[in-house]
């Protein structure tokens, strides 16, 4: 539960703040029903929750990629660095340092890895040398991409595509990356690898992350703070540690019943009612 005190102080330092946003698709389907959250500068904040809970929609509402899907923020405010950004186009948001890495990777399949990375620098006006330097930096974080720099992205593996998508976002020199389901469809080893890089980017480059993730386990391992969405609402939030220790989170998202890891073999045919859904 939000403690009002910390909420106020964090509001002052928040890089991004969502206040009660509501999102409607096609003028009909209400997807977000008043989501509020705040991302502090330099934080890694995780948006957790089931499918269709509204995680992706929340990210797209921020980056304003919603429009292209006939979605619209009908209520509430989105404030980035103290500025209302609800009406800005995605490219204006990228210029302001906020870029989204979409779910399912979305690399430009017919472009080479390097060309993919360079498109990330599209909005930059600081000259070829700076871009070149950043390209090197991305390669230093993702050595695999250097190896495959001239391969067509469409022919690279899922993990490489995910790295390419993150690297491409980095090329925009963002303050904030909205990362959607980075672990989706990746082997466990790769998931750790990618989250490890997220952590390094956060620590070394000062990039703030807001990530939507189904894999609660790994997300709470790397995030500093988390919000849990269900049915288009935030039902729980707290720092990662308190969420990890929350009984409901344990049971419903981490699969730890009581004290031990519960086996998928012994799942009951009934389950405890979620208190927040009453």
């Amino acid at each position: 539960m939000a403690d009002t005190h910390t909420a106020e102080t964090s509001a002052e330092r928040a890089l991004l703040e969502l206040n009660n946003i509501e999102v409607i698709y096609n003028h009909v389907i209400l997807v977000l029903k008043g989501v509020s959250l705040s991302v502090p500068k330099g934080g890694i904040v995780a948006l957790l929750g089931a499918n269709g809970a509204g995680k992706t929609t929340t990210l797209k509402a921020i980056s304003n990629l919603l429009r292209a899907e006939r979605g619209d923020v009908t209520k509430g405010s989105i404030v980035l660095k103290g500025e209302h950004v609800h009406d800005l186009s995605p490219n204006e948001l990228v210029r302001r340092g906020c870029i989204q890495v979409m779910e399912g990777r979305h690399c430009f399949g017919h472009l080479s890895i390097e060309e993919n990375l360079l498109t990330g620098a599209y909005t930059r006006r600081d000259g070829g040398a700076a871009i070149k330097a950043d390209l090197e930096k991305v390669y230093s974080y993702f050595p695999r991409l250097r190896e495959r720099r001239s391969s067509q992205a469409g022919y690279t593996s899922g993990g490489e595509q995910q790295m390419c998508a993150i690297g491409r976002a980095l090329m925009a020199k963002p303050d904030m990356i909205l990362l959607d389901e980075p672990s989706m469809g990746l082997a466990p080893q790769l998931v750790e690898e990618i989250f490890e890089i997220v952590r390094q980017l956060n620590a070394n480059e000062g990039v703030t992350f807001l990530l939507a993730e189904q894999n609660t386990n790994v997300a709470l391992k790397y995030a500093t703070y988390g919000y849990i969405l269900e049915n288009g609402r935030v039902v729980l939030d707290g720092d990662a540690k308190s969420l990890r220790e929350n009984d409901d989170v344990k049971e419903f998202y981490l699969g730890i019943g009581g004290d031990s890891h519960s086996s998928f073999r012994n799942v009951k045919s009934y389950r405890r009612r979620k208190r927040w859904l009453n």
Partner: protein
Amino acid sequence: MSLVETLPASQRDILLKVDNISLSFGGVKAITNISFDIRVGEIRAIIGPNGAGKTSMLNVINGFYHPQEGTITFEGVPRPRMRPHHAATHGVARTFQNIALFRGMSTLDNIMTGRGTLMKRNLLWQALWTGPAEREEIEHREAVEKIIDFLEIQHIRKTPVGRLPYGLQKRVELGRALAAEPRLLLLDEPMAGMNREEKEDMSRFILDVNSQFGTTIALIEHDMGVVMDLSDRVVVLDYGKKIGDGTPDEVRANQDVIDAYLGVPHE
């Protein structure tokens, strides 16, 4: 419970045998010389990094792809080249990585389509809707209702699947595969994109399908918790080659598997 089910997996009959299979697409090798078997009544997991050839392997078993080399023996009979829809009549059904349902149709109708291969009366009979065709329709409806009951989706029986949340759609897809009454069920990432709760449900259904109907199951899955808990044996692929095969514990301890896929040993 039949005698077969009480035997440990290692002593059961072989249901499907994959022998030295190689598959390539225009020179790109997707699968190289892979052999393994699936025994009657077991849950067999196929794991491996992205692009390891897991889905191709399912497609080979299913008859979607025809391997350039090697043979597949199903129920002791070498499998000839065949079309995928024949696979269903031959006792193999599968679900897909990306849900492939008829979004505008209800849950009931979607699962009903899974009975298609079992319907004996032809279209004309069905159109006339008399006598045997009617009886048959009722029979199929009953079988479908049993699946609906089994998967606990009574409340969405009449809901168009396009309107259902992802987890339930996956369940309906499983229902449709079950409707064909397969002896071998292939599940391609049945839990991808699911949350813990949905995974638990899906696990329960997979186990129940296995134990109640005695259906043999081969599944591709990335969630190691699920794989290790559910499967009797695991085969590990990497770059189209088999790098491990054995019980979950054996695979977990296999250094090649750790290096190529698991990373840190899974707790």
